[in-house]
């Protein structure tokens, strides 16, 4: 084997190719031959290096790790002479690599453990070989050649893996139900309809590590005895849809999908199906109706999808993150997976942090970690060092938990007991300036809007709740409203058809329980303690602080502010629309909200 003193890696990213990367590659080869360096310098292709739009075509020289950018064929003789003959960096073309910062996913923090997110940002998702180079499809090979379907199910059961969509049903058990169910066909479905506002973990997995999902699905299909699968992805994620389609195509070309996978005799194929903007389609029966080309309305269960699912056949539905865990469990063993986590919740969970926390974005932590650790150690605490007020876990149907719950371990059971849910792993963190009645109203607006309308408790009940909350925020709350809200919450929770309706009252119920004083202040004192509800606040200028700089008056959209230059100004409350612009702009903090 030849040893080279230098390796030149030319980026053949599609954008670089368009800008002449291959011509550059050929010119380099020729020049290296011409200079007699062919035994010393090797030219290779690589994927993206820097920003291809700004820096392409570009290349890296190793072992020095010098990045040369914006190269053309004409630059090659000079570059080769300088760098490889004279042995000095051709400064003219050398560029620092423009590191693009990932606002959603930073380097792992101290308390993180990455299983599902381990490949994201590390591999080129559009190149199956990069996944394979990181042990991709090794688990599939092991399962197909060394394990029976029943053994596969047992490993997944032993690992303690539970549904990451939020329900927490043991995955192995689900697969066993399908295996034992009677039917002409059995379907494997991936729920990639990540609709919860604030949750984007699944999108990052689909876009960044699509093959981990595909591999997990094939393993599941082998265990459950299915030969056809569907990935139902929401249409709001166009890049995820495109990436999955490319990944499926690449897997098919390598014989990892289709007939007789890896010569094992087992056949399975996959298709991507797109939603069209309906939150309720994340509910499994609604999702299947949507794949069939119908309105995405839920059906009563039983029959469960494992008995009668897609087109009336036994169907298995797992979430993106659930499937993505499977190859790692097969490779590292169930004991490894079960050693991570807490009580009945094993492994890790991704959380999407949003709201008033310093480090927003995606994290992956072992179950059992406390909210305190997530928000302060991983999340860096509250923005502007304000005071923590509440966190809503699990998306729009989750409860809002106050400070007293900060030491709650993240775990399916513990969260349920606290009146919230794990859900899809969304965490909306709220600081002291948040009005909890307004937040409850806001979430109810969402569920009301997304209610499919099929069952009365959800369709009518959520509207009644929304009306009452709106009235409270407008300062028109009635003394009996709190009791009515509690009654409605219980009725909707007990009598709705699907999880959307059953979960819809959670934000109201939890805020009533933990922040009752705020409801009472709105209703009885006509006061919004967080100074958010417009009908209950008034903007005033403090005379002693106002310098008469006129900044507020010039920017007021309705000309409600008047006053002489260098004299304290006044806001006319009858004209003021309470937009808050003056308060944001005032350099002297002279605007007070009362």
């Amino acid at each position, binding site marked *: 084997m030849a040893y080279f003193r230098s390796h030149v890696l030319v980026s053949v990213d599609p954008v670089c190719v368009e800008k002449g990367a291959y011509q550059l590659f050929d010119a380099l080869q020729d020049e290296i031959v011409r200079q007699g360096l062919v035994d010393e310098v090797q030219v290779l292709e690589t994927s993206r290096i820097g920003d291809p739009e700004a820096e392409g075509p570009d290349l890296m020289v190793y072992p020095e790790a010098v990045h040369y950018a914006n190269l053309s064929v004409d630059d090659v003789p000079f570059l080769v002479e300088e760098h490889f003959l004279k042995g000095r960096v051709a400064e003219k073309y050398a560029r620092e690599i423009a590191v693009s910062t990932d*606002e*959603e996913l930073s380097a792992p923090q101290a308390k993180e453990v990455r299983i599902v997110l381990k490949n994201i940002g590390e591999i080129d998702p559009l190149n199956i070989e990069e996944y394979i180079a990181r042990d991709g499809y090794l688990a599939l090979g092991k399962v197909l050649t060394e394990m029976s379907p029943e053994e596969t199910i047992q490993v997944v059961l032993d690992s303690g893996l539970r549904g990451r969509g939020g329900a927490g049903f043991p995955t192995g058990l689900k697969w066993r139900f399908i295996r034992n169910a009677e039917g002409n066909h059995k379907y494997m479905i991936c729920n990639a309809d*990540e*609709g*919860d*506002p*604030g*949750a*984007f973990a699944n*999108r990052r997995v689909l876009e960044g590590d699509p093959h981990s999902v595909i591999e997990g699905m094939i393993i599941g299909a082998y265990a459950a005895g299915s030969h056809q699968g569907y990935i139902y992805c929401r*249409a*709001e*994620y166009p890049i995820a849809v495109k990436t999955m389609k490319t990944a499926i195509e690449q897997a098919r070309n390598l014989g990892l999908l289709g007939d007789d996978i890896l010569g094992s005799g087992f056949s399975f194929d996959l298709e991507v*199906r*797109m*939603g*069209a*903007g*309906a*939150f309720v389609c994340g509910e499994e029966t609604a999702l299947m109706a*949507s*794949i*069939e*080309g*119908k*309105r*995405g*309305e839920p059906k009563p269960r039983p029959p469960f999808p494992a008995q009668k699912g897609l087109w009336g056949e036994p169907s298995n539905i797992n979430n993106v993150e659930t499937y993505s865990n499977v190859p790692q469990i097969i490779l590292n063993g169930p004991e490894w997976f079960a050693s991570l986590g807490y009580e009945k919740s094993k492994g890790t969970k991704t959380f*999407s942090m*949003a*709201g*008033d926390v310093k480090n*927003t*974005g995606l994290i992956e932590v072992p179950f059992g970690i406390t909210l305190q650790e997530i928000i302060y150690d991983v999340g860096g605490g509250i923005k502007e060092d304000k005071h923590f007020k509440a966190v*809503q876990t699990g998306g*729009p149907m989750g409860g809002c938990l106050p400070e007293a719950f900060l030491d709650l371990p993240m775990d399916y059971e513990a969260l349920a007991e606290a009146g919230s849910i794990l859900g899809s792993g969304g965490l*909306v963190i*709220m600081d002291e300036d*948040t009005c909890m009645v307004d*937040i409850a109203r*806001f*979430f109810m607006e*969402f569920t009301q809007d*997304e209610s*499919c309308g099929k069952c009365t408790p959800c369709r009518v009940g959520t509207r009644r709740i929304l009306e009452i909350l709106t009235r409270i925020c407008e300062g028109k709350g009635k003394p009996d409203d709190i009791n009515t809200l509690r009654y409605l919450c219980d009725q909707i929770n007990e009598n709705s058809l699907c999880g959307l309706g059953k979960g819809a009252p959670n934000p109201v119920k939890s805020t009533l329980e933990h922040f009752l004083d705020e409801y009472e202040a709105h209703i009885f004192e006509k006061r919004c303690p967080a100074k958010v509800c417009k009908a209950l606040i008034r903007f005033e200028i403090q005379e002693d602080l106002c310098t008469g700089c006129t900044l507020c008056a010039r920017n007021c*959209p309705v000309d409600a502010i008047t006053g002489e230059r260098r004299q304290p100004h006044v806001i006319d409350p009858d004209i003021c629309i309470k*937009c*808050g*612009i003056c308060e944001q702009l005032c350099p002297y903090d002279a605007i007070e909200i009362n």
Partner: protein
Amino acid sequence: MAVRVKEGQDVRKIVRTLVEQHGSEKAELIPILHEINGQFGYISDEAIKELSEQMTLPTSHIYSVATFYRMLSTEPRGRHVIQFCESAPCHVAGGRLVWEKLQSELNLSKGETSEDDKWTLLTTSCLGVCGVGPVMIIDNDIYGNVAPEQVPDILGNYE
């Protein structure tokens, strides 16, 4: 979302081509409706009638599906469609002020189309880019970390 097909093009012919490409199984209905919506900006009665014939599905079924999903429209939309994310993370990050600015700047409320057919103002469910909220999409362009004072400039980018 910007309309790609001009008035007067043969709706029925395009629908027939789409059914040929996708096949006429019921499961293809939503993908086909997506395409029609993308090409015409909305799903017209004529398109529904033609689809009904080609796919042997009742018009009532097609209409019920077309009206169920938020991304499909049975009403004509403006040349540019603004979708503002109304989800909690964007709301908490100051989305309300941006939403108010959009409404006042365009003089439109949620779901309305301007008289000159230039703008349609909609809200959307979470786009999953919550790290950069408030977020909005105009046609296919996505804008993150939007502040109210940027709204006029952003709108000015569109003819």
